């Protein structure tokens, strides 16, 4: 079979073979043609063909493993490489690009960049979730269980809605802009008063002042019936 043939007309098994051969040439710094691998991605993305995705997985699995190792936060996750390899491929094929969106990918290199970016995304989201575990009571410290529980609702907006409801409840109770700033940066960004003081030069007289503002707003919130009700309902839902 000639390499000059239109890849879009080739049967899948031929395409697979050419892609593997041309990839091998690429790694050996020989002349190579990436059109066959590109065509595999095109069929997988535009037609959602699971068989093609499996070929792509086998073809690029080792490369994706390398990218997982490359992520500077990978070691902090405590997870194994295969977990993130699978999640990265899932992220890619779950994205379901439209034909117009697919036109943003002019070549194989751009598609592989996207696959690589999926590696970054899944590890980064995992690390974000691990940060949340630190806020859980010590008896509930179970990072793996917690991450898994959130994975099932990853694309759900429920978490975001809950945050928005709580924020609108809290922000309405702030007395001035500085309280609002301390509230926002303390709980939405998780910053300490020292960091808040540095972040807004000239806004606060001292780190101690940021602490006093935080103390006052926490004291007020602790007495607040509306917040008590919200937190009690939330605790009830989680049980």
């Amino acid at each position, binding site marked *: 079979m000639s390499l000059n043939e239109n890849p879009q007309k080739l049967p899948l098994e031929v395409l697979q073979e050419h892609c593997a051969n041309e990839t091998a040439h690429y790694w050996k710094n020989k002349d190579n043609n990436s059109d066959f691998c590109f065509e595999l991605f095109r069929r997988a993305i535009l037609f959602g063909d699971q068989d093609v995705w499996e070929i792509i997985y086998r073809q690029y699995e080792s490369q994706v493993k390398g990218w997982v190792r*490359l*992520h*500077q*936060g990978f070691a902090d996750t405590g997870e194994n490489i295969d977990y993130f390899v699978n999640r990265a491929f899932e*992220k890619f094929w779950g*994205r379901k690009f439209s034909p117009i*969106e697919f036109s*943003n990918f002019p070549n194989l*290199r*751009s598609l*592989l*960049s*996207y696959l*690589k*970016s*999926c590696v*970054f*995304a*899944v590890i*980064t*989201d995992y690390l*974000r979730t691990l*940060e*949340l575990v630190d*806020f*859980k*009571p010590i008896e509930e410290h179970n990072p793996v269980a917690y991450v898994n529980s959130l994975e099932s609702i990853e694309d759900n907006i429920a*978490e*975001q809605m*809950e*945050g*928005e409801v*709580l*924020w609108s409840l*809290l922000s309405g109770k702030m007395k001035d802009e500085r309280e609002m700033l301390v509230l926002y940066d*303390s*709980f*939405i*960004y*998780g*910053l*300490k*008063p*020292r*960091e808040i003081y*540095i*972040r807004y*030069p000239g806004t606060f007289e001292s*780190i*101690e002042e940021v*602490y*006093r503002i*935080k*103390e006052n707003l*926490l*004291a007020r*919130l*602790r007495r607040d019936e509306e917040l008590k009700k919200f*937190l009690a309902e*939330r605790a009830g839902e989680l049980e």
Partner: protein
Amino acid sequence: MTKLTNTQLLMYLDGEADAELEGKIRESEGLQKRVQELAHLQNQLKIPLYRYRCPKAQELVEYQLGLLPGDRAEVIVNHLSGCPHCSREFAELHVFMDRETPLATFKKLVVQLVSGITDIGQTRLTPAYEVRGSADKLLIYEAEGIRISVDIQDDVDASGHKVLVGLITGMNAEDYSVQLWSAKNQIAETQIDDLGNFLISGIYPGEFELMIKGPEVEVQIQKLQI
């Protein structure tokens, strides 16, 4: 019974307490109970609120790859200018992606080492080297592990003027200052905070040079369009 304020207890929780305060709290069951109550309240608020407005990492990468529609990209730009976590992740993303196969078409810019020869980490900088920067509002400059993000925004306090919001990662920039020059005139100078952030406001649009000056190294970003 030791009388302590909640501010002192909050400082203890943040690891900001001195040895004497720590000792008092450790010795008192009552104080420990108050500390736990404060920690519990804070965590009850943090769990639903922490980073709830942050875009998923996938959106950050699609923004970096130029795949987001304009309105959503605008939201991400605004978010990046304020969120310390996402701006850090975004800088990490650039490092990660640039190690191989960058998709975006980067505008080539030049950063020159104008004086001083130093080791930063284990890496010796060369007198002149190329860096990459995107052509959008958020410009990224990098070389030898040092990353300088420059975000240009409208100055809400001065119509027609701009604000330059910067972030330096990959080096300890605490003792560094930032100068903005136009046609050999210094327009502004500011300090870099210990998180690597700097800000210059009230800039009338034009072409500038950005100088980052420190005890060991000076970095010059030429032809910065604001």
